[in-house]
């Protein structure tokens, strides 16, 4: 049962899937770390990005990996605009209101997509979708390997932005001490919007990585975001390292539990883990604050 011939490919595949989970969770945790809100519109925005990648392929003939180059800045702007002109002003700075506004956005986006494209499930066909590479005893799908590499690159790029650019420093300053950052002349509303934009841009990349092997319908993003919530809670809200490790961990757990328990039970396993962590260790396995 535990032979390495089955186990190693399952773990490797789990890591590949987990990488995309990690990227989605990264966007969520980034927004939480700076704005201290849970973005309930994350799932709907991911769905929107998946539709964008889908239509970039079917209408413009763009390969998803090429489309990512255009969609990423586009979704950065979308996220920036949403925070700057909708969420920020509407919430009057109250956490409870922000929750409701992001929920409202989720309802609007998801149902606008439903209205526009109906509940049909769509997929795209790419010539390389079923290509595999051999890693040791495991055969890994090419799109998943690409996804893994891209996520590592994106995480690295984000780290460099945070570490070395002025905007990155400003983001970290706002996350640590909002009032202090304001006092030294940082435009907090702008930084909030930039952070929200970065989080949304992560979704555009994730969508382009998902679309070669996954389908899209108006609710496609929700499944991923519930997993992302789990990862973010597991890794500690606001912790970027936590999101990355948590993402890979959940990917492996899911892969192994669907190997041994079957698909639908594997889903409940993730929720059970989510609720248990929320209840008994809400600061996450890697987080410091309660």
């Amino acid at each position: 049962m535990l032979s390495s011939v089955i186990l190693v490919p399952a773990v490797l595949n789990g890591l590949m899937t987990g990488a995309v989970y990690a990227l989605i969770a990264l966007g969520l945790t980034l927004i939480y770390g700076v704005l201290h809100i849970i973005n309930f519109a994350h799932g709907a925005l991911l769905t929107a990005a998946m539709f964008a990648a889908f239509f970039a392929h079917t209408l413009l003939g763009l390969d998803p990996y090429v489309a990512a180059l255009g969609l990423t800045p586009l979704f950065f702007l979308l996220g920036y605009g949403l925070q700057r002109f909708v969420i920020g002003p509407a919430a009057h700075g109250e956490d409870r209101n922000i929750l409701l506004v992001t929920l409202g956005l989720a309802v609007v986006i998801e149902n606008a997509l439903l209205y526009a494209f109906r509940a049909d499930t769509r997929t795209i066909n790419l010539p390389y979708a079923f290509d595999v590479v051999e890693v040791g005893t495991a055969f890994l799908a090419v799109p998943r390997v690409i996804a893994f590499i891209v996520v590592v690159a994106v995480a690295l790029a984000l780290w460099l932005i945070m570490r070395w650019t002025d905007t990155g420093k400003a983001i970290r300053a706002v996350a640590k001490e909002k009032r202090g950052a304001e006092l030294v002349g940082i435009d907090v509303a702008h930084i909030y919007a930039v952070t929200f934009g970065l989080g949304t841009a992560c979704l555009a990349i994730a969508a382009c990585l998902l679309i070669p092997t996954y389908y899209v319908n108006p609710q496609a993003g929700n499944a991923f975001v519930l997993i992302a919530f789990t990862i973010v809670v597991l890794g500690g809200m606001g912790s970027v390292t936590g999101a990355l490790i948590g993402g890979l961990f959940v990917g492996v757990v899911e892969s192994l539990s669907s190997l041994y328990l079957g698909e639908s039970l594997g889903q409940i396993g993730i929720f059970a883990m989510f609720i248990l962590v929320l209840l008994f260790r809400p600061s996450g396995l890697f987080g410091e604050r309660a």
Partner: protein
Amino acid sequence: MRGFAPILIVTALLATVPLITSSNVVLNFLVVALLIALVGQGWNLLGGYGGQYSFGHAAFFGTGAYATAILQVQYGINAWLGLLIGIAAGALVGAVIGALSFRSGLKGSYFALVTLAFAEVLRIIASVAPITGAGVGTLIKLDLRPEAFQFQSRAPFYWIILALVGLSLVLIRMIEDSRFGAYLVALRENEDAAQALGVNTTMVKLLAMTISAAITAAGGCFYAQYFLFIDAGIAYGPWISVEALLAPIIGGIGTVFGPLLGALVVKTLGELTKLMTGDAPGLDLVIYGSVLILVIAFAPRGISGILLDLQRRLRSLRRAAPASLGGGHG
């Protein structure tokens, strides 16, 4: 008795509707609106008065609905008894989720997340468990006798849901006047301060959640009896969690009449959208979501807030009118 007279008047006025019209369209519309008002009143107690925003009231609605349906279909238990057991089952689920989350000190975003997660877990379980009919759903057998909580016409259903809404209004009004209600509002405004003054905030929140769940579960039981069909997506789906919070927030959060007012407005908007665009899926929810954002942005106290402001402005205008006239001549 202050504040109870409006409840009596509104309920009595609404009770005359079936005497005026026998139009099924009108009655059906009002039944659904009152159902949302009831479910929303449940959310309002916990969210509006207690400040604990649940994103998963579907957990209670669905439990009420499934309890009523399963007891009848699988065990042949009378529907009226099923209603009572359904309410109790909903309250129990509320108490369990509340106990787990409040004892762990979850609030704000975390509370919203955990309630959402519980509702989703229940939805997934209901969509695979054999006892709920899994993916097929549960159909309650047609049995048009009052003893079986089924009626030939819509009017009795209408009066029953109206009575339930009326009861919930009275209950919330009584809670407003009670010590428990004062504790609840105190912890909404400042939980640490309330605790420092000796309020057992965990117990107060837990009690609020249990009552809140019971009210919402009553809505679920009624839904099952009225439509005679439920499945996992209806009973535990996110739609009811959203409508539960939409009604009180749009009508006026933390007010007795907020959920009723909000439910009527929301459902009217929904019907108007359907009339104008045909039955396009999704569009009504796009409108609901937009209204939610607009209300939070521009009228945080909802429609009743707007009405109160208008009333105040009218009154001050009336008072100011003679003075300003005099000023104009001088």
